[in-house]
């Protein structure tokens, strides 16, 4: 894999302040995407943090050195205090990014967001047309997304379209890219599915075969060359098809943190699945203490926690042993090497998952949607 160099650097010369905060305002969402990476058990509305909690969190985040806040969910537009929170980030000169399905974004709401000082909108799409969008989201939302994209385009706000890629849409990547451009995106993120939370439950439906990935990647490269500097197109790697793991979140507790709707503070959005770790809550502890002092953030910093094959690996400060959540979800222990790594004794589990993609039939019959009350 490119970008990995055999250099040994020790990030433990001191804990650096975090750069970015992912604020999951609510788990409520009008869509029920097959690839949702939120946990199986969602936070209920009555457990959500209040407006004053979030305003206080933004102040603490600014003092801690956070420069970028991503407002996400669920669907953050469901929170009527969103504008108030964005206003606060503007006052503190923090870059604000809204990660949204778009559903609920009216002209009026968009004007309010702009007045509040939103810096960037990331709109999700699921496909290039209505029928498959319905299969993927379990909702009739394609037309609405098209109208919403047009509102955002007219507003001239900086605008990314993100699509999560998997077996059901990879073959249409060319149409998808062209549609994103015609909808007015300044950036396109082609994000291959990460198998956490609900996405892992739907892995038998979502995991593409190798040929699909290779064809789609070739089209991405051709399009990227075709559009050059005019539009930024980003490919987020499908890690199952790599030989080495991704340096998840740029390292545990190194760059960013996530706060769940109920106030749990996580080093990675998927980390709540790691039941062997007790994560702190911002209702009880300061963000500063959690980042620097808590055992949940310190547990996987540096390399003292590593076992073989990571412990003696020259890449250990490049990929940090890969993703702790993936290690936990697939091998049962968060301190194991990410099973994607070719040196992991669990790599056959990944290869088995990939090998089933060549022989499956009627994959739509296996789809699981969230059962919401």
């Amino acid at each position, binding site marked *: 894999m490119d970008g990995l160099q055999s250099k040994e650097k020790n990030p433990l010369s001191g804990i650096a*302040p975090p*750069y*970015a905060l992912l604020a999951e305002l609510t788990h409520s969402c009008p869509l029920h995407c097959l690839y949702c990476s939120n946990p199986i058990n969602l936070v209920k509305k009555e457990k959500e943090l209040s407006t004053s909690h979030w305003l206080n969190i933004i102040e603490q985040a600014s*003092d*801690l*050195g956070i*420069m*970028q806040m991503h407002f996400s969910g669920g669907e953050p537009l469901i929170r009527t205090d969103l504008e108030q929170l964005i206003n606060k980030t503007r006052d503190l*000169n923090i*870059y604000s*990014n809204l990660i949204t399905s778009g559903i609920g974004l009216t002209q009026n709401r968009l004007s309010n967001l702009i007045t509040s000082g939103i*810096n*960037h909108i*990331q709109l999700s799409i699921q496909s290039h047309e209505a029928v498959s969008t319905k299969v993927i989201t379990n909702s009739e939302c394609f037309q609405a997304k098209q109208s919403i994209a047009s509102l955002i385009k007219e507003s*001239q706000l*900086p605008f*990314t379209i993100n699509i999560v890629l998997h077996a059901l849409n990879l073959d249409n990547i060319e149409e998808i890219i062209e549609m994103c451009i015609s909808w007015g995106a*300044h*950036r396109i*993120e082609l994000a291959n599915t990460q198998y956490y939370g609900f996405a892992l439950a739907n892995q038998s439906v979502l995991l593409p075969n190798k040929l699909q990935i290779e064809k789609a990647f070739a089209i991405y490269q051709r399009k990227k060359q075709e559009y050059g*500097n005019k539009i*930024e197109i*980003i490919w987020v790697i499908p890690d199952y098809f790599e030989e080495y793991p991704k340096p998840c979140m740029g390292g545990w507790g190194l760059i960013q943190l996530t706060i769940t709707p109920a106030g749990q503070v996580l080093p990675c959005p998927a980390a709540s699945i790691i039941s062997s770790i007790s994560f702190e809550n911002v209702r009880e502890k300061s963000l500063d203490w959690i980042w620097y002092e808590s055992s949940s953030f310190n547990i996987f910093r540096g390399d003292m926690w590593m076992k073989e094959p990571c412990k003696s690996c020259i890449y250990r400060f490049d990929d940090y042993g890969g993703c702790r959540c993936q290690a936990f979800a697939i091998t049962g222990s968060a301190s194991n090497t990410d099973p994607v790594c070719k040196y992991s004794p669990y790599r056959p589990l990944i290869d088995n998952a990939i090998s089933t993609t060549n022989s499956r039939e009627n994959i739509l019959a296996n789809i699981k949607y969230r059962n919401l009350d």
Partner: protein
Amino acid sequence: MQTTKSNSKPNINKLAKLKYDETRNLNFILLPEKIVKLNGTANAILSLCDGTKTISEIIELLEKKFSVDAIEKDVMDFISDAKNHGWITI
């Protein structure tokens, strides 16, 4: 690629935002999914890219401010890199 002309007026990309961070005592350029640390020179140049000044004017202002001369090539190279990185538009 088009060559950058000295009478064109660079502006910070609307996707980006410059920030001085008090916690780290450093300047940064913030982009949708990226944060880039700026050295003093880069920050001085980018701070002048506001869409109203030509590159020649920016060079002149920098020469005055830092009492230096013959910086034209360095500034032009930086502006061309900054454009390729998507930090500025021209």
